[in-house]
Every structure is written in structure tokens, then in C-alpha cells.
């Protein structure tokens, strides 16, 4: 019988996580870290493949059959930060697990709460 090994890369996991996290109600934006922002700026000046999904604000590391995902985001006053983090953890972990079969740990950092 043919054996097939599937290996899912960090970027693939990060893109799935970013897509799903952005859909959670209360997530206003995913916030890129400095390195991602500068790469994004360089990409938009130099012209970049636009078909790539963004991973701004998401870092993923895949080891063996486990993925660690960290998500940095901004929300708006009115959403309970603690509950929003838990919702994002649940939704992203479920989505990544469903699409890749990996066991996923998600950690969320809220860096900004918009007041208006």
C-alpha cells in the first residue's frame, strides 16, 4: 500500500489562522509585528504576488504533528477581551485542525482596544 506523508508548513498554518481569526466578531484587525509590517511595505513598493493571503499578525510554528499559533489583534471597546481571546483560540484551533489535521495551540495577544 502506498504511504503518503503530509507535511504542512508554517506559512500554510499561519494563513489559515489569519483568515479564520479575522472573521471572529470583535476582531477589528490583525496587527502585524514590526518585521511583518516592514516586509509588507517592501512588498507593496516592489510589487508582490497579490494572490498570497496575508499572515499579518499571525505567527505559526509547526513541529511534528503540533502547531503553535500566536495571534496579535486589535478589538473595539464593548467586546470583553478575555472572552474574545477565548473565542479566537477556539475558532482558530478548530479551523486549523480541520484543515491540516494538526493539534493546535493558539495564544492570543490583544494590543489595542479602539475606544470610538
Amino acid at each position, binding site marked *: 500500500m502506498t504511504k503518503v506523508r503530509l507535511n504542512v508548513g508554517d506559512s500554510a498554518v499561519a494563513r489559515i489562522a489569519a483568515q479564520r481569526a479575522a472573521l471572529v466578531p470583535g476582531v477589528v484587525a490583525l*496587527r502585524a509585528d514590526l518585521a*511583518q509590517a*516592514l516586509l509588507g511595505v517592501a512588498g507593496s513598493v516592489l510589487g508582490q504576488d497579490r494572490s498570497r493571503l496575508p499572515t499579518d499578525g499571525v505567527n505559526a510554528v509547526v513541529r511534528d504533528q503540533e502547531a503553535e499559533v500566536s495571534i496579535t489583534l486589535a478589538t473595539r*471597546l464593548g467586546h470583553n477581551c478575555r472572552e474574545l481571546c477565548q473565542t479566537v483560540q477556539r475558532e482558530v484551533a478548530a479551523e486549523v485542525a480541520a484543515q491540516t489535521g494538526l493539534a493546535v495551540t493558539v495564544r492570543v*495577544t490583544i*494590543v489595542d482596544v479602539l475606544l470610538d
Partner: protein
Amino acid sequence: MALDPFLDGGPADDAPLEPLACGRDAATAWDRAEAGTVPDEHERGCPHCTAVRADAAGLNSLVHRMAAEDIEPPPSVMERVMGAVMSELRPHDLLLLESPHGTNRLGRPAAAAVLRGVVDRMDGLRARSCRIEQVPDRFDADVAITVTARFGVDLASVTARVRQMVIAAGEQALGVPVRRVDISVVDIWGDG
């Protein structure tokens, strides 16, 4: 005897530094092309010299085109970079948020801005500074907030109102239980 042609005023004119396969010096061919000299008979027929002339022309047009281009940063660059700078929080700038799926984090400046924001919306009060210190290894926090009050506001009740507001906002907006609130009324302002 000259050991190093560079230190001795350069090589003799007839000694090519970077000879091409045809025997001519690549630098000479390049310089002639750059100066706009019409190719001589050898250069017109020689594939090596033609290639060098093409290289020179290619670089020349590339450099001029790029120099003439205005590089315009996309409109959101400032926003993105500033957002990223704001997001670069050090570990002690973060509060911990309880979660059954693993502890999450909340930026301390953002949390303080929320508490200042809700106090600002109270009638007759303005928040000045807000410091949030989380109890080590726990999720509840001590809040120290300084406010200014409008002239005529009952200062005795200010403490109770602010305390209630901070505790409620901590729980409802942030998800950080507030253990203690220190309030200082640091100034009074008038309506005019």
C-alpha cells in the same frame, strides 16, 4: 620592477585588465559604449564586445529608469508601521488573561486606555493617568488612577463612582478582575 600595476599608476594601456575572449579589454569596451562611441569594425562583428556593449546599455537604462521613478510609499505605510511599533510590547507591558485553552495576553497600555476612556465618559470627571499592576501569578489586578473633577462635583462621592466604574469596566470590558482601586483627585477644573 613594478609589482603592483595599481600602485604604480595603473597598467600599461595595451595590457587588458579584464580580457574578453576576443582579447579586448571589457572595461575599455564598456567605457566606449558608455561614452556613446560608435562601435568600430571589430566591435560590430565580435559577439563578446557586442555583449559588453549590451550590458552597458542595459545597466544605463535601468539606472536611469529607476532614478527617474518616484517611489511613492503606499498611503497606509505610516499607519502600518506605527501599528507595528505599538504592537511591539515587551513582556512586562502585557497583562495575562485567564483561559481554559492557555493564557492569553492584553497590552497594558491598551487596558489602561480603556479604563481612562470609561472614566472620561463620566459626568464631571476626566482621567489623567492609569496604572494597572497584576498580582504576580494571578489574574486580578490593582488599579491606580488619577482624575480631575469639575468644580462643584461632590468629591466625596467621586471615589465611590470611579471605583465602581473601574471594577465594572475591568470585568466587563477587559476581563481582568480588579482587586483594589486607588484614586487620586489631582485637580479641579471650571466650566469656562
